[in-house]
């Protein structure tokens, strides 16, 4: 077998660069897998398909971080409708106004420079 030509993380980031939130789907387990990896954590199988999320999601847990310097900011765990969870933040509203159960939608954030794009969320109603 030749070496793999790309890594799970690199594939994930390449989708983000295109403005897509990608995740893996395990046909054998019939469920989503996240974070991206080489083996399915439910079956041990290496059969994992890449899919693109609609980005429609619900806030599962939320906190506001109060750094020693600078403004407080949100950190949230978000459940995507396709059945996977990721860490992110909800933007466009005050961090303490992010509530569990809130419907949110994905957008890509491009920090620029050497940093890879990341998925962030905004309230669906906004």
């Amino acid at each position, binding site marked *: 077998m030749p070496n793999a030509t790309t890594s799970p993380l690199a594939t994930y980031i390449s989708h983000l660069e295109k403005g897509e939130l990608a995740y893996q789907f395990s046909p054998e387990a019939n469920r989503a897998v996240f974070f991206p990896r080489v083996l399915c954590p439910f079956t041990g199988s290496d059969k994992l398909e890449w899919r693109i999320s609609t980005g429609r999601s619900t806030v599962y847990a*939320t906190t506001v971080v109060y*750094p020693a310097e600078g403004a407080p900011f949100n950190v949230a765990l978000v459940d995507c409708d396709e059945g996977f969870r990721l*860490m992110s933040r909800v933007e466009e509203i005050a961090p303490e106004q992010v509530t569990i159960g809130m419907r949110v939608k994905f957008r890509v954030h491009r920090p620029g420079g050497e940093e890879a794009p990341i998925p962030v969320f905004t309230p669906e109603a906004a």
Partner: protein
Amino acid sequence: MDGLKRGSTAIVGAAESDLGQVADEMSPMDLCAQGISGALADCGLAMKDVDGLFCAMTQQRMSIISLIEYLGIQPKFIGSSMTGGSSFEFHVAQAAAAIEAGLCSVAVIAYGSTQRSVGRKQASQREVNPYETPFKPFLPTSAYALAASRHMHQYGTTRENLAEVAVAARKWAQLNPVAWEKKPLTVADVLKARMISHPFTVRDCCLVTDGGGAIVMTSAARAKSLKKPPAYVLGCGHGVTHMNISSMPDLTITGAKQSGEVAYKMAKLSAKDCDMVQLYDAFTINTILFLEDLGFCKKGEGGAFVSNGNIAPGGGLPVNTNGGGLSYCHPGMYGLFILIEGVRQLRGECGERQVKKHDVAMVHGNGGVLSAQASVILGGGATV
């Protein structure tokens, strides 16, 4: 496979090192050595008797090798499982297995940290996770805060409930001569302290201190001939659910559910048989989650259970009688100190904070961000 045998091994020696803020340039290994010296003296064994050695540290990458070098011994069996703060509860199970199998006869489990002296950033290396680090969670605090947010949402747990955990810990600490924080603390004090990661203020978070310690284990047969009453290992269990908080299946149910069930089964006991609980309270939500998952109250009722002084001195269930990681000491990986306190309580050595009925202790370690849970049930002579 039958697994470990109930009561076949015992913790026979236990000691802390210097705690709090230690002397300049004291190393984590120096603190380990102080603990080992104290624990051996506690049971009347000598360094030459030690043929099993276990440790895990944040400041020494290959801590078991460093410790062998430092002590100048050649143990027949060594272990260095690293599961964060619960490492030592894992080590107890591994040492019990090694002793039962005849791979060693006297096992020492040790820890030392100078994280207060050198600063938390120096004491423990942060790993970069491409799926979490870009969002700048203040770890480990924010991970536990996320779990707290979920518990509050699902079960109506309040910040006051969380604060009650800190207040109870402080009341126990006030009875412990070596506890670091003894100033009176009220629920209002906790709520109005500096916010770190909502819902936690600094008073919902464990201390940052130096410290170390050690315990000595041997077979039940040999334990009987030693200086102090043995603390028999009645049950051991573990449960690992994730590494990073974004991969935790349900933020309101920890691996303590599994670790407790396995340990209770081995011990042939249940929560109602435990006279006390010594658990890893890195943050106030830990105490609530673990009391629920270990069966001391129903899921979702932990907030009410810890309130009105129920886990404080004089309450219904003694929890963290040394003052816990919240008020007694917290040198990075705290799990060894709850084993030491469990042993001392079973022996009846705890002075002002001594629990009246002290036959069975549930000791529960936590590692990572609610990630690696390990329970050890210890019992006095009446239980075997």
